[in-house]
């Protein structure tokens, strides 16, 4: 037999040859030291290749991926949230609990229902006790990693990919209200003065916490796409703080039981100005 080609030798090492071909290679290896050494090096390189990615299997899988795999977003999450709200009204009285509180609180409350549904996997777990037990969102590294990841996902998908949007792009919220996805007093931060158009919202689980990510785009290339994240938090208020994830700037803060973040490739100066606008709007709502 002629010295086998690399293709055949590798197929032999991968166990892909039939019995006859395998025996031929074994015979060849038995009396060809150089071929044997070559096969050993190929085997060694295969072990290295496998080892290079073994660590990934030992990493914990990010919660956002588990949520995505479970289909825990979109209408299902909203439906669970509404079911939870209905039960909460029974506990707290007939008056819808979000009336009279800021929009961020109302929205975060809606998300909380969806989140509980996910965390426990059953609607029974969506109780007020569970609500108190939740570890609330802050601005840890994972939280910032996740919101930066979601921002990139929006940007990659582009505005034509409506599959990512749980709440349709309707600046007044009327469409969303009509289909019962949002509380009646829901209002969006209006960022039109910054030439930012609201494209839609997504209901997320970040670090085990429900959150809402609002996605805006603009023709202004120096500003670029922007996402604004709202989540519940029991941590103390925090002044706006700057951070970065790769090419993204993040400005995050906590205020009156809520964690917020602005994410985008825009210059930090833009983010500061938009933060001032949003903070004013949320306080004014």
């Amino acid at each position, binding site marked *: 037999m002629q010295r086998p*080609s*690399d*293709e055949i030798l*590798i*197929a032999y090492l*991968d166990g*892909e040859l039939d019995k006859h071909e395998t025996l031929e290679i074994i015979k060849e290896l038995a009396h060809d030291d150089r071929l044997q050494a070559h096969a*050993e*090096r*190929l*085997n*060694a*390189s*295969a*072990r*290295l*290749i*496998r*080892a*290079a*990615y073994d*660590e*990934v*299997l030992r*990493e914990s*899988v*990010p919660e*956002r*991926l*588990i949520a*995505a*795999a*479970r*289909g825990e977003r979109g209408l299902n999450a909203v439906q669970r949230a509404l079911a939870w709200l209905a039960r909460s009204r029974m506990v707290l009285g007939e008056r819808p609990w979000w009336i009279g509180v800021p929009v961020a609180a109302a929205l975060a409350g809606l998300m909380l229902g969806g989140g509980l549904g996910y965390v426990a996997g059953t609607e029974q777990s969506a109780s007020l006790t569970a609500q108190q037990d939740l570890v609330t969102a802050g601005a840890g590294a994972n939280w910032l*990693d996740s919101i*930066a*990841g979601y921002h*990139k*996902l929006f940007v*990659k*998908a582009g505005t034509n990919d409506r*599959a*990512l949007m749980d709440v349709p792009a309707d600046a007044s919220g009327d469409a969303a209200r009509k289909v019962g996805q949002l509380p009646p007093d829901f209002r969006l931060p209006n960022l039109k003065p910054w030439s930012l158009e609201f494209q839609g919202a997504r209901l997320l689980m970040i670090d085990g916490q429900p959150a809402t990510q609002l996605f805006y785009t603009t023709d202004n290339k120096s500003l670029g796409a922007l996402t604004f994240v709202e989540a519940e938090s029991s941590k103390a208020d925090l002044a706006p703080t700057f951070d970065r*994830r*790769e*090419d993204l700037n993040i400005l995050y803060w906590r205020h009156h039981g809520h964690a917020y973040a602005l994410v985008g490739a825009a210059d930090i100066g833009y983010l500061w100005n938009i933060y001032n606008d949003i903070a004013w709007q949320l306080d004014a709502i």
Partner: protein
Amino acid sequence: MSASFNDQLVAVLPRLRRFARGLTGSAVEADDLVQAACERALARTHQFQPGTRFDSWMFRIVQTVWIDQLRARETRRTESEDEALGAGTDEPSRRVEARMALKEVQAAIAVLPAEQRVALLLVTVEGLSYREAAEVAAVPVGTIMSRLARARMALLAKLGGDALRGSTEDAKAE
């Protein structure tokens, strides 16, 4: 959509992340890719044929989404992961060296042509047979065989030296 479908998807996530990490060369991009693949899979559950391999079906979706993304934009590989190694770590030096060697392997794989990388990751890392890998990549078995051989030989040439010697000695010690 059945709960078992979601369960299968959750169970295969670690391997999808590993496959995606090999394709993209970036942890963040890999997770974005897996998330997009999960969403596409859930939207197309009716296309999965019971009795066929679920992991192969998901690998095919990950690969398709990745190709779509490659076409839509130029990939920007982050260097942050490499920078994270080295300074400031309190790992024993031998372990750091080993991790550096594995990073070298990842870097060598990252510069392989995309189709060779897919063949290598599916067969050598994920353990698919040539036939299964050919189905995922939608090419003939012979094409997988030649792409794989080119990838393996390119890596052998690049890694050569110390890394392989060390690996061979480890194997003999076992």
